[in-house]
């Protein structure tokens, strides 16, 4: 038997790697060397069942038709493509355009995935849903999908995130979901995923875990990417129609990386389009001050998948920080690690302060309050636009709206609010 230890020959630069393929993952859930399935045996059955059901659903025209109908009339897709003219003028350079996922029902891209997975839940004959949430957007989107289909829903959320995203906590409760506070570890997204996995260990027979990002064990990174790819497919269609061509550059923020994966994936084979992923730079580049595993981390295992992760020399997950709850995560989806090592996507990071400035600029110039997560992408787009030609186009995935962040922004700015 040949010994093939994933990552044994890992390089952190993509210099010698083969070009990125869109034909990933393979049958073992591998994106190059990344991905796989590092979970307790108890969960393997549920993952196999999900993989098999997803395969059947993909081949079922009725499934796709039902999802398309929901995306159109329940979510409000296609989401608009918007030219942020005043912001572009203020920056002075390339044109900045937004893919308006913030205008979706529930205010973010997360609903694209939760509706798809809720349909899979019903197809598998499961009667209960669990989910994790960081910023609360995935929690709200899951609670919404569950209310729509009459499925009971439990959302795990770290105590720290419950504090900083309280409007979404209340929304989940209004939608009929039970929000279970997670008090272990860092009390953020990472711990919420641990707790959801533990619930699932005991409930796999009747419960589906609607994981909200392109992370976790196979087949989640693939399924979530596929459901989110509607973002990139629409963007290609809209750019072709409105601009007569594709943008020069596409920018998205990366926590676990679901909006970025959905935006980038359809562009992967358009090799002349530059793709830029923006991680949370937090307070700075010291360990514990940021949440940028692709920029500062190393390959390892977290939450069932082999990918870049912030870890210490023993493989213990390191503390991370971002002012944005949705990016405050030490790991990242395995396909992003693959895109990093193949060089297809350039990953960079944006600090809290830069993202906050972009939020302010966007609100003032465009009348659009982006989510703090999406503000990281806006900041990078503004930086890239400067000094570029005025006929160049930078497309930003505006993954969510900032209403949920109002009280946290007030706190960060030291403003008394409400």
């Amino acid at each position, binding site marked *: *038997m040949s*010994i*093939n*230890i*994933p*990552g*044994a020959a890992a390089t952190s630069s993509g210099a010698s790697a083969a070009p990125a393929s869109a034909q990933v993952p393979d049958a*073992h859930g591998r994106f190059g060397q990344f991905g*796989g*399935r*590092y*979970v*307790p*045996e*108890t*969960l*393997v*059955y*549920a993952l196999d069942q999900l993989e098999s059901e997803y395969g059947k659903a993909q081949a079922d025209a009725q499934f796709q038709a039902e999802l398309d109908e929901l995306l159109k009339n329940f979510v409000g897709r296609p989401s608009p493509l918007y030219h942020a003219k005043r912001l572009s003028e203020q920056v002075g350079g390339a044109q900045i355009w937004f893919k308006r996922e913030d205008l979706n029902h529930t205010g973010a891209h997360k609903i694209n995935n939760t509706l798809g997975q809720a349909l899979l839940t019903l197809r598998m004959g499961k009667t209960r849903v669990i989910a994790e949430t960081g910023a609360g957007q995935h929690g709200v989107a899951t609670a919404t999908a569950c209310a729509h289909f009459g499925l009971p829903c439990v959302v795990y959320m770290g105590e720290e995130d419950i504090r900083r995203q309280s409007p979404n906590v209340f929304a989940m409760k209004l939608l009929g979901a039970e929000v279970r506070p997670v008090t*272990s*570890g860092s009390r953020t997204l*990472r711990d919420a995923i*641990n707790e959801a*996995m*533990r619930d699932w*260990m*005991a409930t*796999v*027979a009747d419960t589906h875990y609607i994981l909200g990002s392109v992370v976790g064990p196979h087949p989640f990174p693939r399924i979530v990417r596929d459901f989110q790819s509607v973002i990139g497919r629409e963007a290609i269609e809209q750019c072709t129609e409105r601009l007569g061509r594709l943008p020069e550059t596409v920018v998205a923020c990366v926590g676990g990386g679901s909006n970025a994966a959905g935006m980038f994936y359809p562009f992967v084979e358009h090799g002349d389009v530059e793709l830029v992923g923006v991680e949370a730079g937090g307070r700075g580049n010291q360990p514990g001050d940021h949440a940028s595993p692709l920029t500062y981390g190393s390959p*390892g*295992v*977290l*939450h*069932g998948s*082999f990918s870049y992760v912030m*870890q210490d*020399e*023993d*493989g*213990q*997950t390191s503390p991370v920080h971002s002012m944005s709850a949705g990016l405050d995560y030490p790991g990242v989806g395995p396909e992003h690690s693959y895109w990093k090592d193949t060089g297809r996507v350039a990953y960079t990071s944006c600090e809290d302060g830069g993202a906050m400035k972009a939020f302010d600029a966007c609100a003032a110039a465009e009348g659009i309050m982006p989510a703090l997560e999406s503000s990281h992408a806006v900041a990078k787009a503004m930086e890239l636009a400067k000094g570029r030609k005025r006929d160049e186009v930078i497309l930003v995935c505006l993954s969510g709206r900032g209403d949920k962040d109002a009280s946290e922004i007030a706190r960060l700015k030291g403003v008394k609010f409400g």
Partner: protein
Amino acid sequence: MSAIDELFAKLRAAGRKALMPFLTAGDPDLEFTAAVLKELVARGASMCEVGIPYSDPIADGPVIQASYTRALDKGVKLRDILTMLGETAPQLSAPVVTMVSYAIVYRHGVEKYCDEAAAAGLAGLIVPDLPVDESPALAAVCAARNLSLIQLITPTTPRERALKICETSTGFVYYVSVAGITGERTALPPELIDNVGWLREQTKLPICIGFGISQPEHVKLLSPVADGLIVGSAIVRRMAADAPREQKLTDVGEYVASLLAALD
């Protein structure tokens, strides 16, 4: 033959069963871990399972999670755990295995981890987040060092897959009593005995049952169908009690003695 193979050959010849206590390394410190290991074996534990604290243990319930968190908060390092085991294991008449996340094994280096485990006199590994499909590489490295790589079968494992796991597991096969996380339970699932009975007919490998086992009644009920039983949270909880160390050592020892009395 690994030390575990030898142990079960001996136990089977004598018509006896194994009891494998689990304890967390470094909770509250490695000196105490070594003392408890010696006490457990002195009381008659057949082998010991040492949990390497991990920051994100998905398969563990609140008791073991909390013990990992306490140990990590005190700064326990893998290097120090392996040093302690290297000093302690050779003094014990029972094999010692580590329960360790693949995140740790991978980060340390798969070959390096196994080299150091073998050098420390350990008998094998249980890697709870490395299902059989992902395990061939580690299995080959373990085999080359005469370390057992113990794999798990759970109530959700389809029977065909269980056969595949039996083919690749070495030392023994770990049958997880319940679909769920670790932790003491009063009642065990009624179908457990039948499931283990079925597995018994499929493999010559020793079968040890773990998860949820904490009472002498469980031991009485399960020891006829298994080759061994694994007890974790009940021990970790006693080790974490708010009591002087000597007292805790005696409590853990007496507790294990009560389980051993129910074993044969």
